[in-house]
């Protein structure tokens, strides 16, 4: 049974159909990627899965449970957390406070298990441990991205949704962020990734879907899509 199943999902903004009849599933322990141009509906799909958008039609099944109409905080409790687009770190809080906010739904924040998770996030992002007391709003874009990802992991999710983690970062940092995504998968957390940086994303995706104007137009393994001529031309600038 896949960890996440999305069945014929439709979401509207007023009368405008943002996504139309989207179906895909995410297997446990994999990286699944949604790629596509601006406005294709990638972020809307993620926000709908985490409960920030209302579903018009269709179903979302997470870990065998229908979560289509659950409020977002109930979904986090079930093991689904999101690192939002544009990072959305809490600028007035320190790095550590941001990470603690990620564990908002957890009741075990005083236990060794929690400390262990914090150490795991610090191991993924050593920078965050160095800067634990820094106010997050004063950090660079790359560091804020790390805060957002670390924060999402502090909920100890089964599935983490990463919305454009490489957006606006320098190439060297992008490489670092992607190797951390590999590491998150290696530690057993399933990843659903939305990316515009298609070349990097496809290289490490087990499954990938291409969205165009609210619909999935192509699906396949990451390597398949990366090798496909039309995908190359449209999203990869002909160079993988």
């Amino acid at each position, binding site marked *: 049974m896949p960890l996440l199943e999305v069945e014929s999902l439709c979401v509207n903004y007023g009368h405008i159909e943002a996504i139309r009849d989207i179906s895909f599933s995410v297997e446990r322990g994999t990286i699944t990627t949604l790629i596509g141009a601006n406005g294709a509906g990638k972020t809307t799909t993620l926000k709908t899965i985490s409960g920030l958008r209302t579903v018009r039609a269709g179903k979302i099944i997470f870990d065998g449970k229908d979560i289509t109409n659950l409020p977002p905080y109930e979904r986090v409790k079930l093991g689904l957390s999101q690192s939002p687009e544009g990072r959305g770190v809490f600028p*007035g809080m320190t790095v550590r406070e941001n990470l603690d906010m990620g564990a908002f739904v957890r009741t075990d924040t005083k236990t060794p298990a929690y400390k262990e998770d914090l150490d795991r996030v610090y191991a993924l992002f050593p920078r965050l441990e160095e800067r634990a007391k820094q106010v997050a709003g004063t950090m660079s874009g790359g560091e804020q991205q790390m805060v957002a990802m670390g924060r999402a992991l502090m909920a100890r999710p089964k599935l983490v949704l990463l919305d454009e983690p490489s957006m606006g970062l320098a190439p060297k940092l992008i490489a670092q962020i992607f190797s951390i995504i590999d590491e998150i998968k290696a530690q057993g957390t399933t990843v659903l990734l939305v990316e515009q940086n298609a070349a990097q994303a496809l290289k490490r995706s087990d499954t990938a879907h291409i969205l165009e104007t609210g619909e999935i137009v192509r699906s396949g393994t990451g390597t398949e899509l990366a090798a496909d001529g039309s995908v190359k031309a449209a999203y990869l600038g002909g160079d993988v």
Partner: protein
Amino acid sequence: MRRSTKRYLRQGGLYAVLAAVVIFLAVSVDWGNVHRNFWTPGLGDNWHDLILTGVKNTAIYTVISFALGLALALLLALMKLSDVLVYRWIATVYIELFRGLPALITILFMAFAVPIAFQWHAPGGTAGAGVIGLVMVAGAYMAETLRAGLQAVPKGQTEAARSLGMGPVATHVHVIIPQAFRIIIPPLTNEFVLLIKDTSLLSIVGAAVGQRELTNVSRDFLSSGSTAGTGTSLAQAALLYLIITLPLTRLVAWLEKRQQRAR
């Protein structure tokens, strides 16, 4: 003529006009008269005690109106942003009503009309009732400031909080309201200064001696003691108001400048 020469001449002309006006005033005003009427010594022995009581009461009334007004304003602002149409409606009517009325009318209503109509005894007597009127007005003004602050917090913050597992209440308490307050510190400090000055409206409600605020105390001296008939007590009260408000308005300017830099 060269451009820079022209500019010097124009500036020199402006300074000359200013100097002429200053000299004219210095010569034509009867300074002895001004001194007699606005700065006569001998306000009486109890002036010192009473004016200090006045300053103390002004401070107390300001702090109470600000604190309670802010709590009321937060409630109104949240109502105005509520999903429930009726709440939005109630908040809008309240805010428009009390911003539309002169503050003095509201204070008079609360100090005189309402207590008589409902046999109501406000805590702190007439002065207390007047302060409640001031709270109602301050709440209406600050509600709009707060609403603007709440709306100025980026939408992504709400979504980030929701997607981390916070419910609507937790999102507001931990994420939205703290950031909104940071944004509105300068305008809120400004409201505080306005409120200090507005406590002078309470001088008309006829408070007991120990409850009179600064304006009321100085007004009493307009008609009593050896300085009766001069503006001395008013001038001294005015000076005290400025000593309190000027540093605060400078503080507002500094806060605004700092915030602009932080953006």
